[in-house]
């Protein structure tokens, strides 16, 4: 094999022909694949500290070390369907938002500084901005309590295996909001000395054995049932900075009063609100890399060519 090849060295002409073919072929093939994808111009939500999109794409080495150290494991690597930037990290907020964990391990792990190392606090990240994209479904605007809403939905669907995790989630947030009197009612109902996360499984089992009617009836009389949904704020990792405030507004046409979740400047676009939003289609959405000033100017979307 080797001998044969060395006996018959490739002629200059053949070499020129093949090498030009290979090089041009690669370039053309690459161009053909990447250009239509490039034109999509859709921005992905990058991990905290990401440089501006062009610099980020230039410097990211696609090693995935940010993904490895991510405690909630929400960072994913882009495939060919995400367009330009195969192998670069991104976050799908609906599947799991960045919790801005202390120390920002993803930033520390980045070997190239694509996730800028000068970022040390989650509240200084500039990932994007949350925008209320579906006010029609937003429970705050509709004046609906999220637990009531979720329980009703659960009943409509009837129990299945996936609903048990949904029930568990509902119970976890319900227990946190119980008043002392209500805890006493629960203790009597489930004959448990304590109502907390520890006894959650027992409560859930009892509820599964009967039906969900009791708890739905309970929520009807629940002290917080009139309180409208504030999940996006409650789950926000920067809760103390109050990135979302609920403003009372009046519909100028009908004179109807409603609550509007207003996103403030302190929002960094981590995406937890989008993840936790209880409506089937998220009512709040992260627009990657959208800046507060741009939003004030009326922009609700952002494309790569805007810098």
């Amino acid at each position, binding site marked *: *094999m*080797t*001998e044969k*090849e*060395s*006996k018959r*060295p*490739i002629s200059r002409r053949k*070499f020129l022909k*093949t*090498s030009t073919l*290979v*090089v041009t072929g*690669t370039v053309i093939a*690459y161009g053909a694949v*990447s250009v239509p994808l490039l034109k999509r111009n859709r921005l992905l939500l990058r991990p905290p500290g990401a440089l501006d999109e*062009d*610099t980020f*794409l*230039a*410097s*990211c*080495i*696609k*090693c*995935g*070390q940010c*993904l*490895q*150290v991510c405690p909630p494991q929400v960072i994913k*690597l882009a*495939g*060919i*369907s995400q367009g*330009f*930037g*195969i*192998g670069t990290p991104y976050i799908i907020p609906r599947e799991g938002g960045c919790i801005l964990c202390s120390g920002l391990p993803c930033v520390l*792990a980045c*070997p*190239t*500084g694509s996730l800028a190392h000068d970022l040390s606090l989650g509240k200084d990240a500039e990932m994007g901005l949350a925008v209320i994209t579906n006010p029609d479904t937003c429970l705050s605007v509709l004046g609906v309590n999220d637990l009531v809403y979720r329980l009703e939905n659960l009943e409509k669907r009837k129990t299945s295996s996936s609903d048990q995790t949904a029930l568990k989630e509902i119970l976890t947030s319900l227990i946190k909001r119980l008043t002392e009197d209500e805890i006493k009612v629960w203790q009597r109902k489930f004959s448990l000395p304590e109502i907390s996360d520890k006894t959650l499984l027992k409560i859930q089992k009892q509820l599964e054995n009967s039906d969900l009617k009791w708890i739905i009836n309970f929520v009807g009389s629940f002290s917080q049932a009139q309180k409208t949904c504030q999940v996006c704020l409650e789950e926000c990792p920067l809760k103390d900075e109050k990135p979302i405030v609920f403003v009372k507004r009046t519909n100028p046409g009908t004179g109807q009063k409603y609550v509007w979740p207003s996103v403030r400047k302190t929002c960094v676009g981590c995406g937890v609100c989008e993840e936790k939003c209880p409506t089937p289609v998220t009512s709040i959405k992260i627009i990657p890399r959208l800046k507060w000033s741009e939003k004030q100017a009326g922009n609700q979307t952002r494309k790569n060519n805007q810098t």
Partner: protein
Amino acid sequence: MKNTPDKKDKKQEKVKTFKGPGLRSQNSPQPGHAKHKWRNIRWAVLLFFNLLFFASFFFDIQILEGTLSGSRLLGFHMIDPLAAFQVILASKVIMVNLVIGVVTIFLIYLMFGGRSFCSWICPYHWLAELGEKIHQILKKKKIIKNHAFDPKIRYYFYGFFLLLALITGYTVFETVNPVAIISRFIVYGPSLMLIWVMALLIFEILYSRRAWCRYFCPVGVSYQLIGLMSPLRIKWDKESCSNCKRCQSVCLAPLVLTDCVNKGKSEYVNSSLCTRCGLCVDICDDKALSYGVKYLDKII
């Protein structure tokens, strides 16, 4: 490349068994008894490190984090030199971690022989080796023909992709780099880019024997440069060589043994293309080939 007999060299040879430079062995390579010591060690090392990449993430043991483009071994940055150069050219900034990563890689492979990355670590190389076996079977049955390219294409690729990174401001090669794609596949699971790797493997099996590694891969070029300086080389013992040329028939990098076995000019395989795979060491029945350390051997 050319093998014209050189009479002067021939006269200098005193050992009878050595048939002289430029002479092809009269006996065609005999099928040697299967001895796969170094190949087995090499494959074990290759699988071990790639599994370590996998396990570091999957079981969270955090020993070797990252992929072959960039990783941390117990906290030490290691970055593939070509990827690092691309990033520097694309972003026009020299980052400290990149420099540290490249220097670490340089030092490690300086010890272990430069292009040994290809045959001892690179997961694509392993697949290509398996593909080569299929290729050889098909070729024996005369179903396919092998097509050779110029091995220099890799250097043009190296320059071309670095230039492309500079012009486009994007690490273009890293999106099509089969080494990185497979490494990401091992650690993070499959992606659609595997189709491109499969296509490449099929091309190698059906059209050109191990074409990517032999002619095109620019990743290996950085390691080749390190290999030029690395003292760990294949040592050739002129005295015991019976010049059967079986080593050349198994060699992963065509022609690297020429200077020794054909021309008798050098005691070590000095070509930067040598991957230190040890296949020639395995096949040699005369014990003429072994691993050696170029400068240290003489001192000892």
